């Protein structure tokens, strides 16, 4: 088949080109706009147009205790949620990675929490978590355990939210890792088995290292989204009680659409972006290291 030598030689530029153009077109303006806003003091409640104030908005936001708390909270929420999802997700993938009756059904069931619209899930879980008439406390009291305050208490709100997040997103890790496990070649595993290794040893020393790049792929994807978790927190607590569940993204929304402080909100969003960027880079370096 006749192909132009040009195409062949420049494939590494041509193949990604459409995608790159697309992303650049849609992203450049928003990035510039948000960055610009972060250097202004645009506040819709004052009715005055935006004026350039340099780093002043940054100074105001970054020194506010509420911001620092939100930052810390974002990390705590993300770290625990993703860690639990990673462990449970990989474990579930390992359990399901064999041919068995009902495997497709199991994979389908696994998809369900992912498919659930986060906003709807948040609203539903609100009722679930109600301390008086909620199903959660009903289950606890039926088992003889004391009822909890779940999202109504500033100490238990973050764990309660993490629980919902884990329920919803663990299946994503499982599915990605399952696909990765399916693509592994059998030889190393067979060889280890012949050498007399136990199943646990095989999993620990052969399977997991082989599939680690895929695990990290899944974790990075999940990490990025977890840092920006919005829908469920917004639908369930709106950042409350008080500010106890306010993460950076929620605070950004509040500052944009409830306080109408566009300049300061842009600062929060810029910081959030940098946080996500740094964390992603960190894990990506891990992924490269494990691919060797």
């Amino acid at each position: 088949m006749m192909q132009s030598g040009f195409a062949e030689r420049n494939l590494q530029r041509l193949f990604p080109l459409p995608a790159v153009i697309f992303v650049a077109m849609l992203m450049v303006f928003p990035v510039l706009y948000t960055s610009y806003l972060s250097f202004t003091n645009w506040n819709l409640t004052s009715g005055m147009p935006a004026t350039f104030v340099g780093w002043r908005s940054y100074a105001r936001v970054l020194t506010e205790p509420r911001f620092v708390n939100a930052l810390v909270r974002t990390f705590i929420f993300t770290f625990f949620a993703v860690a639990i999802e990673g462990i449970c997700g990989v474990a579930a993938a390992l359990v399901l990675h064999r041919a068995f009756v009902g495997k497709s059904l199991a994979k389908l069931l696994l998809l369900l929490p992912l498919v659930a619209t986060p906003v709807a899930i948040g609203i539903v879980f609100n009722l679930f978590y109600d301390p008086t008439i909620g199903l959660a406390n009903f289950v606890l009291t039926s088992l003889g355990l004391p009822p909890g305050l779940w999202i109504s208490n500033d100490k238990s709100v973050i764990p309660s939210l993490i629980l919902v997040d884990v329920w919803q997103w663990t299946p994503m890790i499982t599915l990605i890792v399952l696909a990765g496990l399916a693509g592994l070649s059998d030889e190393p595993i067979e060889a280890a088995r012949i050498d007399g290794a136990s199943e646990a040893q095989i999993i620990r020393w052969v399977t997991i290292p082989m599939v680690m790049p895929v695990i990290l792929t899944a974790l990075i994807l999940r990490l990025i989204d977890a840092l920006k978790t919005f829908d469920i927190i917004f639908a369930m607590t709106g950042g409350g009680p008080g500010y106890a569940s306010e993460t950076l993204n929620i605070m950004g929304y509040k500052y944009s659409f409830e306080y109408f402080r566009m300049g300061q909100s842009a600062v929060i969003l810029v910081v959030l972006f940098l946080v996500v960027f740094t964390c992603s880079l960190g894990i990506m370096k891990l992924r490269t290291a494990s691919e060797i």
Partner: protein
Amino acid sequence: MKKLVRNIVVLSCSLCLCVSATVRAQQKEIRVLLANHPYGELLKSAIPEFESATGIKVNAESLQESQLTTKLTTEFATSSSSVDVFMTRPLQEGKMFYKNGWYEPLGAYDFSDYPKNVMSVATFGTKAYIVPLVTEWQVLYYRKDLLAGAGIKVPATFDDLEAAAKKLNSENIAGMASRGKGAAAVTQLSSYVYNYGGQYLDKGVAVFDSKPAVDAIRFYGKLLGTYGPKGVTSMSWENIMPLFQAGKIAMWTDASVFYGQIIDPAKTQLGADKVGIANFPAGPKTDSPFIVTSWGMAVAKQSKKKDLAMKFIEWATSKELAAKGMLANITMARSSVWEDKAVLAKVNPGLVETRAFAAKNGYPLDRPYMSAVGEARDLIGELIIDSINTKGASPNLEKMAKERVEKVNELLQDTGEYGK
């Protein structure tokens, strides 16, 4: 190859533009944004009549209130709006929208049917910008059967209220409920503050650290902290209502709009005979619950079809539709429908009575009336949560209130509203 790709991109962009442009032929068409509100629903169902009568096509969208604000703000702030008419909340966004020049002055509209205090939040300077639609006022919902069973009369004062809450409070039933969720609770706390003789703002200065106001906050916290449902500090009306409907609450202070819900047999097993509605109890100083214009309608200044928009708003806020709203138990703002005996006969007597009382004695605001109200509500909300958590006994409350007052005053100064 590169050229080909670029050509394809350019071609598809222009194709998109052409298609949309031809679709956008010059028709008599307006875009209306409504809230998920019973009146919005009523309008939507009545729109076909308007369309056939005037030949104007109406693209109506309804959104939940916070999304409505998000959408309107995004559109207006970027000067890219195609909205012509929209529902708006005068007390929450009125000042801000006015300041940014997003409302069109309604000089040609006849406002004579609206009471003066209702118009006070729809007017800025000498012009009116919003047509008031619906009002709501603070009431006390109570369980007739529980009060009767314990031999208590309907509370008429705060002392009665506390005593009744104490008597009715039990393991399974919360004696007293009201919103505790920070910013959301600010509107309900307002009537308590007024009845203690306090205010949020006085002539543009924050005064909720005054002794009466702080006393009110303490009382609120004591009531809810001691007799309130579990987890009340994260509850707003949407959390309290199912509890009340499930029979878990003896008394509940909130706005009048929820009455229809809690006596609707499809929604609750309680039934109208068990649920009562009463005037908000009097405080130590006075008896002045809030009565506010919760929703209004406005024309967007950026609208390119203002004449069509005016036609719509005249129709949507007309006396005829207001009467229809009343028959659906929507408490409209127009005075005439409340004086129409035929209409009143069909409206819930409890609503009629409590409204008459509130209209006579009530205060037209339920929150600090300022542009930065969102932030101010969060600040006051912190006081409420602290008070509830300490059952009103918090030693820090005065200090916290002073700090919040300073912050709110800063907000007022930043927006040029201080002292006005």
